[in-house]
């Protein structure tokens, strides 16, 4: 009798857990659904859109997706990093310059070196935010100039090269030709770095600091240290983004691309609250795919590419509007 009740109990608990998980990830799941609808729509308007198209999409979103993950980490911790694009430019030129004409083995060392460089750049951003007490947006805005200048110091014009194995890593597909290698690499890399981090004490602190700094401090979380680590992790992902840029284009470009602002857009689309403390890193990745696929669709529909920019802006605003309307209604209840 009691055993039966227990079985029923665990059954409902498991169902409750599943429901809670669904509710927590409702936004991301909805976004994935929307992405599939978008893929279907793309097939309808352009029947020739096939595996090659998906691969092209996967390669073109790779740097922006990593930038979005970097931005998501910082925004979850309650900050914002406007220097991500510049850090990507810096790490991209450093990797391309060092790899130029060297062996594959040396390139592996370069990759690890550049990742450490990214961690250091991010840690500098974070340390400045914590030590100077100047708002995040101002510090990272200024660091945008610093890192971009440093990138130009390394190399004044695009050049250098990427190791062949790096290019092979992102080009082509895996097993079946609708699974692009670039996406597998992206998900693997993000999972390997983020999942252990997110489950650790530090990851929990990151969310705590983002949602309520004072409460986190009073619960014994070291706020400054957590923030610095958040920025350092963002720097690491930005460095991965820079390496991805080098790998997908084959050269290093010292001028920052439009990654910083687009990453903010993708993060918001991915269900991360700009107020901090809420969201994950996989939603933003889906957000990047959605943004890029909409662009592709507009090309297929032969819509003026400038109107595509307008549409991206409108979608961004509309998504946030819907999100904040939901928040307002929830708060009223």
């Amino acid at each position: 009798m009691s055993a039966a009740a227990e079985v029923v109990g665990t059954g409902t608990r498991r169902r409750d857990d599943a429901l809670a998980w669904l509710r927590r990830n409702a936004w991301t799941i909805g976004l994935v659904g929307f992405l599939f609808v978008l893929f279907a729509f793309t097939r309808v308007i352009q029947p020739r859109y096939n595996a090659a198209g998906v691969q092209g999409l996967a390669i073109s979103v790779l740097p922006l997706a990593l930038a979005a993950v970097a931005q998501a980490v910082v925004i979850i911790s309650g900050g914002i990093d406007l220097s991500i694009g510049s850090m990507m430019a810096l790490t991209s030129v450093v990797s391309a310059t060092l790899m130029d004409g060297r062996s594959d083995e040396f390139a592996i060392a370069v990759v690890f070196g550049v990742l450490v460089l990214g961690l250091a750049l991010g840690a500098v951003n974070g340390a400045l935010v914590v030590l100077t007490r100047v708002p995040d947006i101002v510090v990272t805005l200024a660091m945008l100039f610093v890192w971009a200048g440093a990138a130009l110091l390394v190399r004044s014009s695009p050049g250098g090269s990427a190791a062949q194995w790096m290019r092979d890593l992102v080009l082509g597909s895996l097993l079946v030709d609708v699974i692009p290698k670039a996406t597998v690499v992206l998900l693997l890399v993000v999972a390997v770095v983020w999942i252990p981090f997110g489950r650790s004490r530090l990851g929990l602190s990151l969310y705590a600091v983002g949602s309520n700094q004072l409460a986190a401090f009073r619960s014994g979380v070291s706020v400054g240290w957590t923030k610095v680590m958040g920025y350092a992790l963002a720097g690491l992902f930005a460095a991965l983004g820079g390496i991805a840029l080098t790998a997908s284009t084959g050269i290093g470009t010292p001028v920052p691309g439009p990654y910083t602002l687009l990453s903010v857009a993708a993060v918001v689309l991915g269900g991360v609250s700009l107020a901090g403390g809420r969201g994950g890193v996989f939603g933003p990745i889906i957000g990047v795919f959605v943004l890029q696929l909409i662009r592709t669709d507009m090309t297929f529909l032969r819509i003026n590419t400038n109107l595509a920019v307008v549409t991206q802006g409108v979608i961004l605003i509309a998504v946030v509007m819907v999100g904040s309307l939901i928040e307002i209604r929830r708060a009223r209840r």
Partner: protein
Amino acid sequence: MSVEARMSRLRERGGIRGLFRDQPLIPLILLLLVLVVVIQVVRPGIVTPSWLGVILRASVPLAIIAGCQTLTMLTGGIDLSVGAVASMAGFVTATMVNSPGGVAQGIAISLVAAALAGVVTGIGVGVFRVHPLIMTLGMSFVVLGLANVWQLTTVQTGSGVPASLRSVGSGTIGGIVPMSLFVYVPFALLILVGLRRTGYGRLLYAVGDNPVAARLSGVRSWQVLVVLYVISAVFAAIAGLLVSGLTNTASVSLADSYVLPSVAAAVIGGTSILGGRGGYGGTIIGALILTVLTALLTVLGLHEPPRQILFGAIIVGVAAAYTRVTAES
């Protein structure tokens, strides 16, 4: 002991720090003077009345756009669409030079377009509570895209910057006093007096300092915000007209490079990005500091890369020092 005596005792104990805390403009003006002295030492004889005129002329558009940032930052917001709106205004006016209405029509249309963009931004921020960063970022995409579409659809009838704008933007009186000051001085007075002496100015501080308290005192925040973003967009458009006159070019990305420095100028000038604290006086000095700093880095013969690095480092440094000096307690 009388209250006055106590107060003066307290102030004495505060010393220079106390003075700086009470009068945050003083350290800024000192920094500006130091920069001018340094530039004079590095290149003796460079500081002349006409050089000052050049610096002023270059500062005017930045100071106006930084004014947009100051006003929006006072309410706890930020306006990243100023670059796109300013470029759009300069560009649209330039394409309308040969239209029947001429320059006046072009200016009128661009100002109305800017105001429309401001209304939409204001409704998004004020009514739908979209984060200002996102709202203005999205709006800048929209404005930029529409300006590009305009560029393709408009018949290229010898678009060029109209002579009248050129003379206002880059002309001088006697080679010293820039013409743009005649636009700028009334503008600056309007903001300075408006922020201190008008009810609307105080409302901006109230909404930024404590939104809940403002709402409970009967302030309709959304109305304040809609008006604010319209003002900001129109100011940005005016700045865009001056930039196109100053540089004698008109393109859809003309004023993009002003966005980040405008935020920096407002921050250096002591306006808090969190809202409720600051003013336009500091922003003016901030814009001058940035312009003189750029001139100094150029005079030093530095190439672009180290110039950018120093520029960023100095912004962090000044902002940090300022936060420390003016911090409570």
